[in-house]
């Protein structure tokens, strides 16, 4: 199987705090992976390492065939630009730019700006008519969809979403999940960090972290992850 992500015995230590402990994981191309776990379990640390925003203290991460450990700061920046789409819980839209311009910013740092393509991306998330609005003129759900459009505009191989529905109502949550499903169906690899079992239920595979350790790794979304306590017991 062609793996887009291979994590091999990775640990991350901040001073006295061990955020990740000896974690190994492989993610095939085109898989939707959900990462669950309580606060402080290492989910965001793992996302940051996979997203080239941080580096492991120990271990090796291979993303799309490239060993991230040997890459320079500029090399990691290039990987973020070329291969990764980021979706944040807090949206992180630039407040003085319109929805369209926020999408074009990602194009600008990637290659060449193309307004029509950016408009198509917004149309794909149902915001074609709201393209000229500033973030403050958009609802939370609309802002998150702009964030999704920005993440997909450069056709990244892997989309990393950190609590993408954390600030959304149920309707918008379903909209965003639907867009992510479409992306997965088109071959994108999607990694979602979430607390919500409803969100994890959309994934092809769910892993659970606790105290930086991988305590559960289940393929298939049919079986619900009932609660983290149970998951921890199963791992033990």
């Amino acid at each position, binding site marked *: 199987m062609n793996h887009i992500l291979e994590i091999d015995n990775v640990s991350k230590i901040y001073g006295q705090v061990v955020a990740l402990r000896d974690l190994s994981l492989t993610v095939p191309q085109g898989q939707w992976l959900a990462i669950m776990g309580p606060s402080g379990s290492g989910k965001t640390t793992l996302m*940051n390492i996979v997203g080239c925003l941080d580096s492991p203290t120990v271990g090796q991460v291979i993303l799309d065939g490239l060993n991230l450990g040997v890459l320079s700061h500029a090399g990691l920046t290039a990987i973020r630009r070329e291969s990764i789409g*980021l979706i944040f819980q807090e949206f992180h839209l630039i407040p003085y*730019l319109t929805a369209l*311009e926020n999408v074009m910013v*990602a194009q600008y*740092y*990637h290659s060449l*700006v*193309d307004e029509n393509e950016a408009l198509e991306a917004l149309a794909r998330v149902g915001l074609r008519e709201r393209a000229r609005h500033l973030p403050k003129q958009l609802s939370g759900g609309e802002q998150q969809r702009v964030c999704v459009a920005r993440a997909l505009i450069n056709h990244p191989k892997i989309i990393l979403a950190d609590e993408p529905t954390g600030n959304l109502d149920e309707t918008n949550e379903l909209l965003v999940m639907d867009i992510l499903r479409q992306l997965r169906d088109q071959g994108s690899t999607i990694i979602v960090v979430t607390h919500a079992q409803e969100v994890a239920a959309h994934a092809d595979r769910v892993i659970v972290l606790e105290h930086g350790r991988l305590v559960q790794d289940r393929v298939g979304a049919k079986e619900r992850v009932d609660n983290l306590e149970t998951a921890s017991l199963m791992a033990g």
Partner: protein
Amino acid sequence: MNKNKAFAFRLAIFSLIRRRSRLLAALLGVALGAVVLFGLISLCRDLPRQFRDEFRAYGANLVFAGLGSARLDLNDLKKAKGLLPPNKLLGLTPLRYESVRNRLRPYVAVGVDFAQSQKTSPFWRVTGRWPNEPFEMLVGADIALNSDLKEGSFATIDGRNPNQERYAKDFRIVGTLATGGVEDGFLFMALADLEKMTGISGVADLAEASLTLGADELKTLAANVKATVPSVEARLVTRITDSETNALTKLTSLVYLVAVVILALTMICVATTMMTVVLERRKEIGLKKALGAENNRVAREFLVEGAIVGFVGGFLGSLGGVVFAQIVAYNVFGRVMTPRLYLIPLTMLVMVIVAVVASRSPVKKASGIEPALVLKGE
């Protein structure tokens, strides 16, 4: 301009326009700096002219004399005068000194061109009136005080010319001259009357000229006169030209010093504002880096914003500087100054450089921002 450059420019403009409060703070700082800078440089450029005009009130600044002990030939003086720039020449008068007597008392009579003397020696104060008819004269204030030679009276002036021939002529005293200097002890008459009275014409002892030129230009002019008319010696009146140069140098240095201080203050103002902007936009910077922006690209964006602030602030400030310079020129020198429009692009360039240099430290701060930390809200 390709699409990306146009978009980068749009980003910078929108960043400034849609965040007006910060833009106004930075613009105000730069514009105020530009107002003072433009005004001071304008005044500095105009100061030499202002000073020359002011110093002309203290008398002639160039003197012509004959070579060695020879008297000055008026034909040679005419040639020398032809070498002086007419638009810079305020006045030129020959002066001829003769020993004369009145009722056996000795005096020094000075033959001048009264119309020109009023221009070369604007500090002369005359009570009564200036002579404008033949054989009218002025008496120095000291003579008027200590003799019968007073305004309104007639005086017989007599003497011997160099050929030992006696002469005598009646003059009407029409005014008293007071300068507080040696002139108060002389009799002043028209050179033509002195020539007629003595029977000797075509010579003078020296000539005084008042020109609106600086010391260096006067030196060049004097050398040119000496080279062209060898029988005429031209000398600077150093007490005037040196004073003018000293005062001008000190004032110009002071103005430039103030300009440097103003630039430094502007730089601090812009640097502080830009630092605030960087802190306010930490998340945006983190996001851009997370999207794949290299450090130098983020830095360039901030420097472009700084440059735009410098450009616009410099332009607005220059316009204000035109008004500021006029107000100062009018209130200090009592005259309207010609606006030096070529200083506008110069001021704008200086303010762009100041703004960009001031942005360097905040930009360095921006380059050090870790995207993972700021996106987490730390």
